[in-house]
Structure formats: structure tokens, C-alpha cells
């Protein structure tokens, strides 16, 4: 399942869905969260914009690449958009496989590509100002690992 949504997600429910197949021997999961930044570490929030139609397509493409590369039983990706506050969950990537190596690698791969190849834009908001987050070269460089 791939979902781009404003609502929060329930990690336990997503995990349960990943465990449906009785040949599932490994589940790797990643959760990204809003953390405090700079001087506004306690009052930070984010606005996440996306491109309806393109964002979902980007994620489908990334998941399809992962499924070609590793032997996977199921993949779940949930990415939130809209206004998010400190400590909110932003993104969930869950991968089910027979063995842990495939699950770990595919989860890592999907997160790297979500950072640099999916149409999302983050804006940091503090009581004083708001700034669009600039893309990091290190995120782009991470893709060379694959």
C-alpha cells in the first residue's frame, strides 16, 4: 500500500498488515519524525507540500524498483503532508520479506529515494519566520550507494 495523507498513521496496524503472509520471516520498518531544529527546537513545525498525482507515481516507481531488486513479500509506504508539529510522525516505510537482508536493504533504499526522487517539499515554520528547506547534497550522494 502506498498512501500520501494528512492523517497520522498507526505503526502497529501497518506492521500487522505486513505480517499477513505466513512465509514472512523479516519485517524492517522506518519511521521519520519531526524534530526540533535550530533555536526553535521546542516550537518548530513543518508544512509539507506535494504534487497530487506525481508524488504517488514517484513512490510507486521507487517501490517497483525495490521489488525488482530484492525478494519482497510486501511494502507499505505512508507519507504525511500538510501541517506537522514537533514529534509528529512524517513517513513510514515497511518492508516484509522472507529474510532480513532483503528487508533491511529495501527499506534503506526506499527511504533514500523518497528523500530525493519523490515530489515533496518541506517548509520549516517558527513563530518568527518560515523557510523552505533546501535539498541536501548528502541526500543526493546517498543514491550512489545503490
Amino acid at each position: 500500500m502506498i498512501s500520501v495523507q494528512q492523517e497520522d498513521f498507526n505503526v502497529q496496524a501497518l506492521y500487522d498488515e505486513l505480517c499477513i503472509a505466513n512465509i514472512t520471516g523479516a519485517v524492517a520498518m522506518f519511521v521519520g519524525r519531526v524534530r526540533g531544529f535550530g533555536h526553535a527546537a521546542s516550537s518548530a513545525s513543518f508544512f509539507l507540500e506535494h504534487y497530487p498525482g506525481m508524488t504517488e507515481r514517484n513512490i510507486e516507481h521507487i517501490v517497483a524498483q525495490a521489488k525488482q531488486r530484492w525478494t519482497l513479500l510486501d511494502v507499505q509506504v505512508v507519507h504525511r503532508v500538510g501541517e506537522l508539529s514537533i514529534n509528529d510522525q512524517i513517513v513510514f516505510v515497511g518492508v516484509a520479506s522472507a529474510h532480513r537482508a532483503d528487508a533491511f536493504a529495501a527499506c534503506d533504499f526506499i527511504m533514500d529515494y523518497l528523500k530525493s526522487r519523490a515530489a515533496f517539499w518541506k517548509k520549516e515554520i517558527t513563530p518568527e519566520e518560515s523557510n523552505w528547506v533546501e535539498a541536501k547534497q548528502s541526500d543526493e550522494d546517498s543514491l550512489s550507494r545503490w
Partner: protein
Amino acid sequence: MDRGVLDVADMKVVFFASLKETLNRDSVDVQLDSSLTVADLKHYLAEHLQQPVLLDKTVKAAIDFDFARETDVIDPARVKEVAFFPPVTGG
């Protein structure tokens, strides 16, 4: 020049994030009667909207919901929507 309906295709160009704010608009409709590259469309819009920010090298593009390169060709008879935006920052 007489432009018959079938010769001119309507295409929507949409903008996102900081680019949308700088341009103070989220889209513009353009009519094109021949193919052009992503770079050509950037130049056309930069002039048409008087917004040189569109020529910034960091501005990325998509054609009908797929990431596109500067040299990719936009065929107005087939393409419905082109997007311009800053580098993505998801995850």
C-alpha cells in the same frame, strides 16, 4: 496568424513550493503550436511572466507527472501538464 483549434493545444504549467510563492501563482495556461524542450519552455515563461527566477539552474521540471530533464521534448499535442519546482525535500 490564423491558429486553427486543432493546431494549438492548451497545456497547463503548474508551480510548487518556493517557486509558487516567488511567482505568486500556482499555474498558468499556455498555448503551444509546436514542440519545444523543457529549457525552451522555461525561457518562454521567464519572458512571458517576466520572472527570470524560472531560469535558475536549480528549478526542476516534470512532464505529465514524471521527472524531466532540460533537454526533454514537450509535444503539446500529447502533454497535458508540465510542472516546475525546486529540488524535492521529502522523507
